[in-house]
């Protein structure tokens, strides 16, 4: 069974076994506007919970992408680097950013579920 959780930095994370897929939320893409550039962490590198693990840029500005959990980067979605507009089109599905082999499953407990995130997103954009 997979579970999807959300961070205060507007990332989503889907855990299947010990592999987590991470991307940015639809709400994040709506705040950013048209995304025209994406940079991902290096495959094989280790990222720490709440550390930067990539960059997205809209026509207006650059924003860091954070990882909601710690782990080793085991896969990257090259298609969003080649065509960053895909992130606006399908942010919470095919336009995932990277996959991690996670270190500590309990880090997931600090994150929000869908309902909590929806409220958080609504409040943070008000």
């Amino acid at each position, binding site marked *: 069974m997979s579970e999807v959780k959300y961070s205060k930095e507007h990332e989503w994370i889907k855990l299947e076994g010990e592999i987590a897929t991470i991307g940015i939320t639809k709400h994040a893409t709506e705040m950013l*506007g*048209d995304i025209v550039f994406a940079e991902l962490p290096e495959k094989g590198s280790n990222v720490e919970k709440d550390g930067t693990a990539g960059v997205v840029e809209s*026509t207006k500005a650059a924003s860091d992408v954070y990882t909601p959990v710690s782990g080793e980067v085991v896969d990257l979605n090259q298609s969003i*680097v080649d065509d*960053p*507009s895909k992130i606006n089109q399908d942010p919470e599905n095919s336009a995932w950013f990277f996959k991690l082999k996670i270190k500590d499953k309990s880090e997931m407990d600090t994150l929000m579920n869908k309902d909590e995130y929806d409220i958080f997103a609504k409040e943070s954009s008000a």
Partner: protein
Amino acid sequence: MDTKKTSLYQLHQDSKAKFVEFAGYQMPIQYSEGIVEEHRFTRNHSGIFDVSHMGQLFIYGQEDLVDDLERIFPLDLKNLKLNHSKYSFLMSDNAGIYDDLIITKIKDGFLIILNAACKENDYKILKELLNDKYKMILDEERSLIAIQGPKSVEILKSVIQGVENLNFMSGNWFTLDDHNIYVTRSGYTGEDGFEVSLTNEFADRFTRRLIDKGAKLIGLGARDTLRLEAGLCLYGHELSKDKTPVEANLKWAISKERILKGNFIGSDIITKQLNHGVNKIRVGIKPEGRIIAREKTKIYNESNLEIGEITSGTFGPSVNGPVAMGYVENKFSKKDTKIFLEVRGKKHPATICGLPFYKKSYVKGVN
């Protein structure tokens, strides 16, 4: 200080604008379709820009006004025909740029379009330089609407007959529903288009008519990507008090006649720079790949020597890649020079290139 609203504020709200404070005004940065789509729509069709925050300064006077303004602007104003416009600058004694502007000869005087952030200061400077001799009105009762893009002429002429006869950088008065409207064929997107000065009271109704004819509202976000692709300077970025028109690579805008005679504010420095060159100069910069180099990005040469800084950088939707402008040391300013841009601690390759990034299509020969 409260932020001001233009007379199109309600229309922006109705059109689901996202607002941003700009030069003391609540201005639309984008609408629901987003910057890239708004940019493309302007290039392919017709975009409407609310530029009512810009200053519309009317100065009234006869021959002595022309003489006095020639001591301020590096232009051949004596030979500027009625309803013709020129791009120019308000400069300090050191030729630093206080503002860039468009000056148009109108009956009984001149109309000067000023940047929103600079207009109050410009007014003060000009009033002092002109010794309070002339009637000057920084008109807050009028709005300014730009309509830009290849379909703009068809759309605007269906509302105001006769605008199709205007040439680039010229204008005229028109009447619509008993309102006096001043239209110039000009703009800041690299496209054919018009700027329409009209009363605040009429602005909303007029703009809704353009929308009914198929034009769409475009925000400041796309205005920035459009002007950058067109290689046009933005005050506060490419232009400032510590840059001269020669350094900004805008010497084309300085009248050759006037350089020979001098006698305008900043002429000593301008003449010196034209004769002996400048240390730094504005250039176009094309980053390789997709990396975007924003304002303040440091520029290095192939020997890792810092040679300049980016002043504007973004993704150009029509170029379909990153574009930038900046200042580099003159000796590294040649087209095709390889440079490096430091973005997030890494140096990325780029090339000095000619401007514009996107070719303009101004209408020069209607009449």
